[in-house]
């Protein structure tokens, strides 16, 4: 096993794996009856595959990959709406690169760009602001996408645009929140989850208390974790220890980055600019109550939905997922990516059918990227 070379601290990793095995035995977890631990964040999913943690831990521990990859849960209709905005005369449509290859019902943003729409990949919403300053005769739209980690960046950008009176800048807001889909999964009678690994960088913004309901109302342990392999192993160990001791608490393994109450400036900016939508559509999961954000009326001038009459401000179209694609089942952990009939056939990272194949944070792309290397190594 090339274990030692893969881990910066192999001794710590070995000790944690031994402790995990001991706790798993104590709980009575087996390959047939595993403890199911969901990692919510796509960054964690990527890390778990990169280091093969799912193969290294005791066979009674099963990682269930959660819905925490923002491009993976983006409905196709939203991609179509991006293209609709981008193709309007005078528009410069800006987006994070991750969203470029997400398939819409007919095309992706990348394909629309190739067909002539002015779509530009930017690193930051601040780049979009700068584009608006430099191109006063154009309308610059930023595709606001992501969980609480990215939400403050678009909120602060909108506040800045308001201060400058930049009338040609707007945000197509598709920000989503982490706690609500977890509640939806916990309410699902088919789901069988024993504990959670909580997202690190989202929690750096919101703190650890938004997860209190998981422990209090559903009696499940959750440990907020860093994304280095030993962070993840330690967090698995902490979840198992809670189960073994009959506890259900919110614990913070990543306290070196995650403050208990989050980041005050970020939270204030989010609260100032955004409000909750009554519900929001998630690819694979359907509508989830209060799981998305929209721009408050005070900042309507910077709301692309209002400016262009699309999205929740326009006529909503429900689009079913493509034939034979199992994204929903994979995203809720009911199915492994390889069990999807399209995996590696109709759906590959080069030609993604579902969004879970697009980003390195998506479970299908992670299986694909590291599954081959792993098979060769075994």
């Amino acid at each position, binding site marked *: 096993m090339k274990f030692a070379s893969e881990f910066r601290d192999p001794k710590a990793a070995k000790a944690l794996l031994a402790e995990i095995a001991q706790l798993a035995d104590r709980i009575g977890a087996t390959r047939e009856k595993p403890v199911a631990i969901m990692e919510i964040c796509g960054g964690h999913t*990527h890390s778990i595959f990169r280091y093969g943690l799912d193969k290294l831990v005791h066979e009674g521990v099963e990682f269930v990959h959660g819905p925490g990859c923002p491009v993976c849960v983006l409905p196709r209709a939203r991609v179509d709406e991006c293209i609709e905005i981008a193709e309007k005369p005078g528009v410069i449509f800006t987006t*994070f690169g991750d969203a470029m290859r997400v398939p819409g019902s007919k095309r992706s943003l990348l394909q629309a760009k190739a067909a002539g729409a002015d779509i*530009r990949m930017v*690193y930051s919403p601040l780049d979009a602001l700068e584009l608006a300053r430099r191109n006063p005769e154009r309308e610059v739209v930023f595709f606001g996408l992501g969980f609480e980690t990215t939400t403050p960046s678009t909120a602060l950008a909108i506040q800045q645009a308001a201060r400058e009176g930049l009338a040609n800048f707007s945000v197509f807001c598709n920000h989503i929140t982490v706690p609500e889909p977890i509640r939806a999964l916990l309410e699902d009678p088919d789901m069988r989850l024993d504990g959670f690994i909580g997202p690190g960088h989202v929690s750096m913004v919101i703190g650890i208390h938004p997860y209190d309901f998981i422990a209090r109302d559903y009696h499940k342990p959750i440990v907020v974790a860093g994304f280095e392999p030993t962070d993840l192993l330690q967090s698995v160990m902490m979840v198992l220890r809670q189960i073994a001791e009959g506890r259900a608490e919110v614990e913070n393994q990543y306290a*070196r980055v995650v403050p208990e109450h989050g980041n005050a400036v970020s939270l204030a900016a989010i609260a100032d600019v955004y409000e909750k939508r009554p519900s929001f559509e998630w690819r694979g999961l359907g509508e989830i109550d209060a799981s998305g954000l929209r721009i408050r009326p005070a900042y309507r001038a910077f709301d692309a939905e209002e400016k262009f009459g699309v999205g929740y401000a326009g006529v909503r179209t429900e689009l079913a997922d493509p034939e034979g694609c199992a994204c929903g089942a994979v995203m809720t952990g009911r199915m492994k990516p390889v069990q999807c009939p399209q995996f590696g056939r109709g759906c590959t990272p080069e030609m993604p059918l579902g969004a879970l194949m697009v980003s390195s944070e998506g479970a299908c792309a992670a299986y694909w990227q590291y599954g081959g290397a792993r098979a060769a190594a075994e």
Partner: protein
Amino acid sequence: MCLGIPGQIVAITDAGRLMAMADVSGVRREVNVACVAEGPLEDLLGRWALIHVGFAMSLIDEEEAAKTLAALHDLGEAQEALAQMAEGDAALEGRA
């Protein structure tokens, strides 16, 4: 997209807009420091921060920065973040 990348704050570029220059793996990038600016901005000089889509989100110590950067390199995320910064620069020039 969801993982921040460590950068060292090397200069304040626009105090009014809370903008600073950060050194991210040898690449210079202007970032917003609103989320980490508690005292005078000068106090940030030389500090390390986790930078996420152009915003310094959390101050970290140098050792944590080095470990995080190493992990991001393993995942290919550091390379991706740097490529995205370059793409952002290109977009501003109208080259992309």
